[in-house]
């Protein structure tokens, strides 16, 4: 979402709280403050939360794997290596899974670590790591498509229903309820069987066809709540423009719900696509996918022997870690969008700790049981 819109609306704003303080600042100081509040502070929030830190690290790893990986790691092909090699074959140290070579970088020869079947190979001699890495870009396309589609449709339908109320709300809510009731997988199975989608974009769309409803429902109830809160009424009474109110009051409040629902939709798409590839219901002859790997491992006797454990475990790990990265990252972002937490982490905006601390005993009361 655009970080810039709230930023731009700060300085020239009439009647906002910030104007008073900001008018005395130089332009560069103001820019520095804004950078701190909207860029550095979120990063600091992320870094100060263990879950967000793990999520961000994992996600960064996957991005690296998806964008850089295919350039560095050889494309998997049948018979490229001996069959069913174990991971780190020859031992972690002194094994034959790595070679010291050199790489030509801008005309200069640089020493380079060449990886050969780092995580072993499958029964047709294809490298496991190679397959996992080369499956990632398609996965990203699919996830991104689904995330965009779900967010766009979910927020617009939800906001429309919540904001307009009345008959429009009734109709949209009924639609949302019905879409939510439809059992996902059977419908997907049929659609996939009929459409046989090959493009990851189409696949992402088909697989997230239902997920927007959950987000729409969450957004609708949030918009309903926010619309009736006194701070929005107050902002309206103060004459703030609608875009300003939306940017400063509404967006920060619905962002956590958007993030969580988007991530859930993405997770659903990962699970469903891998599952469908695993079932062999998606056309997969030329496609590398973690689900295809699972399917091959499952059906080619990988289940019967310990030698093939890596064939089964590596794609599983990829699925679990990617969904975990998304979930943890979304939870961390929840804190970023919470203005209170962000303000506490901004260096330049005066800490308003006094507001929050006296309530501390009250919130701590939550954890006390049986003390009375």
């Amino acid at each position, binding site marked *: 979402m655009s970080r810039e819109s709230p930023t731009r609306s700060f300085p020239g704003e009439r009647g906002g709280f910030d104007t008073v303080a900001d008018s005395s600042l130089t332009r560069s100081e103001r820019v520095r403050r804004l950078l701190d509040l909207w860029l550095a502070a979120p990063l600091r929030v992320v870094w100060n939360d263990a*879950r967000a830190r793990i999520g961000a690290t994992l996600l960064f790893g996957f991005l690296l794997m998806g964008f850089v990986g295919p350039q560095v790691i050889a494309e998997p092909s049948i018979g490229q290596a001996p069959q069913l090699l174990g991971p780190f074959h020859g031992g972690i140290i002194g094994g034959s899974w790595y070679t010291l070579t050199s790489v030509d970088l801008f005309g200069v020869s640089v020493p380079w670590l060449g990886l050969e079947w780092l995580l072993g190979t499958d029964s047709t001699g294809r490298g496991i790591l190679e397959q996992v890495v080369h499956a990632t870009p398609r996965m990203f396309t699919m996830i991104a498509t689904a995330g965009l589609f779900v967010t766009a449709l979910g927020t617009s339908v939800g906001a429309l229903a919540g904001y307009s109320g009345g008959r429009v709300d009734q109709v949209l809510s*009924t639609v949302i*309820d*019905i879409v939510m*009731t*439809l*059992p*996902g*997988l*059977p*419908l997907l*199975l*049929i*659609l*996939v*069987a*009929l*459409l046989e989608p090959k493009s990851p974009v189409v696949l992402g769309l088909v697989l997230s066809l239902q997920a927007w409803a959950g987000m729409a429902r969450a957004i609708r*109830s949030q918009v309903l709540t926010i619309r009736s809160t006194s701070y929005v009424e107050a902002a309206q009474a103060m004459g703030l423009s609608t875009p300003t109110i939306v940017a400063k009051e509404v967006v920060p409040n619905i962002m956590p719900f958007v993030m969580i629902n988007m991530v859930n939709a993405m*997770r659903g798409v*990962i*699970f469903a696509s*891998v*599952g469908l590839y*695993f*079932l*062999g*219901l998606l056309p997969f002859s030329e496609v590398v996918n973690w689900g295809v790997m*699972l399917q091959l491992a*499952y059906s080619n006797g990988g*289940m*019967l022997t*310990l030698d093939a*454990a890596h064939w*089964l475990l590596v794609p*599983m790990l990829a*699925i*679990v*870690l990617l*969904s*975990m990265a998304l*979930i*943890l990252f979304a939870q961390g972002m929840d804190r970023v969008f919470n203005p209170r937490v962000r303000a506490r982490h901004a260096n330049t905006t005066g800490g308003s700790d006094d507001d929050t601390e006296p309530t501390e005993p009250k*919130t701590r*009361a*939550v*954890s006390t*049981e*049986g003390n*009375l």
Partner: protein
Amino acid sequence: MNGYFVKRTLQAVFTTFVVVSLSFGLVRLMPGNPADQLRGQLIRNNPSLSQQEINRRVANYINVDLSAPLHEQYIDYVLGILQGDLGQSISQNAPVTEVLGEALPWTVFAFSIAILLMFVVGISLGSIMAYWEGSRFDVGSTGLGIVLNSTPNYVTGLLFLYVFGFILGWFPTSGHISSEVVPIVNPLKPVATFQFVADAVYHASLLIGAVVITGFGGVALAMRGNSIQVLGEDYLRVARLRGLSDTRIALRYVARNAILPMYTGLLLAFGGVIGGSAILEQVFTYPGLGYYIVAAVEARDYPLMMGGFILITLAVVVGAFIADLTYGLVDPRVSTGGDSA
């Protein structure tokens, strides 16, 4: 009071109508739709048949008479479904209702146990986490919950099958029951019945385990959040001051108010999990509803495919309907027009 029930009933009826219409749309209007595909199959396999005969067979298979106008096809289709006629399975060579009717109890059996266990484990763990909020146990369980939440149940299923089924050989790797066990449920023959049920549970246990393991984390996290919220409520403080016993506060106040919002989730989870049963049943070669749907898709057995879709969807609609109605009975706020989202 009654307004709530009337509204829910109308909504359930309307949803059913939408589902049936949707499936007709899938059968008849989608590009590459089953009716045309089926017709093509029949013509290819029996080139000598007359056009009329082909249409008759298509009608027999999926309740759609291709020679009639579209709106008549629709009405026939809906009426057929309302009469319980889901057509004829091609690959199983039997009425769809018969094939699915045989599969349904197994799916319901295995997944009911699984979901029940999942909620029992999740709710217990979640309450303990909430009571010990911030402790090492809480932090550890939360982390575990997130990891489990990130794992699709078929991945756990595959792992279980691999480790406990094939490598260790503790559990059967396919089927409903052992071949020598007679399926019998008869209160007059308790031993045989017990043997049968025990054997069925034994065969389903890896599947059940996979559902529970991947599902309870999410339930626990939700329960934890709800309980923490309730623990901070004013009425809890007042209840303690009033000198109510800890047991009563834990059950009547915390548990009740934390579980109630999850109640509809339970019945909806049922729909979701059964909907997702396809992959798990495939992994464990457990011939239930989902297994047959996948088999139907693989064999391009369109009647069975659509029948499975309709049956599952209607089951979910009915489940959601029951959830709504009974929720109105257990939570006083709903039926009397309190705050319901």
